[in-house]
């Protein structure tokens, strides 16, 4: 079994502040962590490895510092970490990022068969939830987003059954392998790594892939050149005002409803 997990190092948003003048994140001095959903994806991969044998590869695109995140994945039990890092990748949007990750995964698939691609459902800094689906589309692989559980996984028959959360409830889907899953936190609870794994990880240095080696990326599709997204404005929305409370017992149901309808109408929310 070979699972590839794509992760992102993100600022710990419980500490993040926004520069009120520029509207951009102040990353300076903010501790970096593995995107929490991604950490659960790594955990799932490691559990499947324990059950079926095989290996787990973790890839990430980011600055040299993101190597720390790969070391943390090694602590969790990942076997190989690849940092895709080059100045040419900087300022990539989700389109450019999914291109780079898809090409990287293709290169790894050329080395040997891959059964599963795992992504967190979204990154907590951008919240777009686009990169995983983007990679699935580029690779022409089945996509199961918002996965919450793996009911069965059979690397020999190359099928799996996965539970996915939707607004209407849980969908149970059967898929062929390889498939791409974007996962929720419930997919696998993170266990504390044994000391021996932590020691091994402390001595592990992840590989670094550049924009030209070992994969030659199309420079028109990476970094700022490959990113058509324009951020018009980033801002913190003002907090919602509390709604008006009416004591129905005092006013009576009929007049409460009439008044409420009038207010909604006046606000232009509905046309009656």
């Amino acid at each position, binding site marked *: 079994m070979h699972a590839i997990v794509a992760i992102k190092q993100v600022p710990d948003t419980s500490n993040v502040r926004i520069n009120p003048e520029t509207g951009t994140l102040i990353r300076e001095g903010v501790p970096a962590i593995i995107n929490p959903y991604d950490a659960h994806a790594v955990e799932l991969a490691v559990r499947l490895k324990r059950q079926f044998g095989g290996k787990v590869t973790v890839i990430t695109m980011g600055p040299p510092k993101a190597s720390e995140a790969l070391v943390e994945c090694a602590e969790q039990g990942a076997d190989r970490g690849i940092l895709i890092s080059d100045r040419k990748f900087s300022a990539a949007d989700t389109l450019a990022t999914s291109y780079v990750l898809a090409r990287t995964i293709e290169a790894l698939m050329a080395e040997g068969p891959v059964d599963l691609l795992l992504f967190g459902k979204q990154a907590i800094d951008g919240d777009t939830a686009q990169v995983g689906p983007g990679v699935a589309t580029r690779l022409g692989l089945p996509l199961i987003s918002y996965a919450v559980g793996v009911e069965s996984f059979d690397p020999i028959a190359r099928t799996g059954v996965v539970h996915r959360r939707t607004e209407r409830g849980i969908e149970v889907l059967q898929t062929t392998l390889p498939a791409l899953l974007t996962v929720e936190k419930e997919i696998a609870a993170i266990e*504390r790594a044994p000391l021996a794994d932590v020691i091994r990880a402390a001595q592990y240095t992840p590989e670094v892939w550049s924009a030209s080696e070992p994969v030659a990326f199309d420079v028109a599709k990476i970094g700022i050149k490959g990113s058509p997204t324009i951020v018009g404005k980033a801002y913190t929305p003002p907090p919602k005002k509390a709604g008006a409370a009416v004591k129905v017992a005092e006013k009576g149901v009929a007049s409460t409803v009439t008044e409420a309808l009038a207010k909604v109408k006046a606000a232009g929310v509905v046309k009656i």
Partner: protein
Amino acid sequence: MPEKLTFDAIVVGAGPAGISAAIVMARSGLKVMLIERGRFAGSKNFFGGVLYTHALADVLPDYWERKPPFERPVTEQGYWFLSPDSVMRVMHKSQHYQKDPAESYTALRSGFDAWFAQQAVSHGALLITKTTVVDGIRDAKGRVIGVRTDRPDGDVYAPIVIVSEGVNNLLTQKLGLMKADLPPRLIALSVKEYIGLPAKEVETRFNLSGAKEGMAIDIFGDATLGLPGTAFLYTDKQGISIGVGLLLEEFVHHKLKPYEVLARFKNHPVIKPYLAGGETLEYGAHLIPEFGYDRMPDLAADGVLVAGDAAGMVDALHREGTNLAMTAGRLAGETAVEAHKRNDFSAGFLKGYRQQLESSFVLKDLKQYRRMTDFLDSTPHFMSTYVNYLNDAALRYFSAHGLPKRDMEDNIIKMLFQRRSFFGVARDMLKLLQGMRG
């Protein structure tokens, strides 16, 4: 059955003491495991802000080339005596402080300790983070032969363990090296804010000529509501470290909340203008061991040495701690290296560590100020009485009221004895002298 994890030495806690020990041992070729419970070295560590380079140079002679993340060299330092509406300043600025490297620097521990730990790694030590040591492992004869961590299969073995776990010395206590838990009258609680300000603003407000100048001020009196404790204000590169520390018991006894004491201090009319427009970027609190020379734990036993805050190595009067810790860590590391050469990890041999500390400034200073905490404890009025008097006397001295100077001088003397009897003053001064001379 996982294989037994074995090292030549285990260091518990990646602070100044532990990192120093790890560097010394790794440099001598020992296989060292440095265990830190925080996410990274420095993530749990905290101090007011002044770091002395002499002890660092002893551990790492080429530290300057390794570019430590200092904030500013301390080129002006001294004391402010704060009354509710006034301040008397005793500051010292000298060209002698202006050198590269300087004698001391302001620093932020989250950056400094991370850098320092990286030096241990570059010397070959293995740094393990997010891992807490929960107990020691002993053999049938009671000798320490390893530690138990909170991870699955988390036992790790070494013939020597250096405990530099910091002020909350649970392992030291579990190993039976300290008989009782820490009493609140022998522990101080310090709270601090790091307030961001543009470098230019810091320099203008403190009259510094550029990034190569910095100020370190220790503040007495109203900053601590006149209670036994001190406050501080240090300049950083782009900000100010400001904090206040009191004996833990004072917070409890007077029902004070640490952040309220700090907020009150920040709003003092003398202090407030220095902070105006700044943004609080960090808030932290930390315990400071002040149990002193007479109540230190055993520093050595079979297979184990204790260094740093865990052993109470803090000279609060001179705001020194990291240099004591680095020196103790280095000596512990050197002792461990020697123990490996002789293959003797017995308490009998390891006690040489204590003797080396006794002949260094570490225990000499702690011995000299062994009665300082008692002094503060037995004269709780000291800070308010004398600091306020100092300011009131100065006001009288510098104001011309059309009085003959002799009357003014009499007035100033009378003012003192109205506040404290002649014998009271004599007793306070004697106690201060005892506190200072040991």
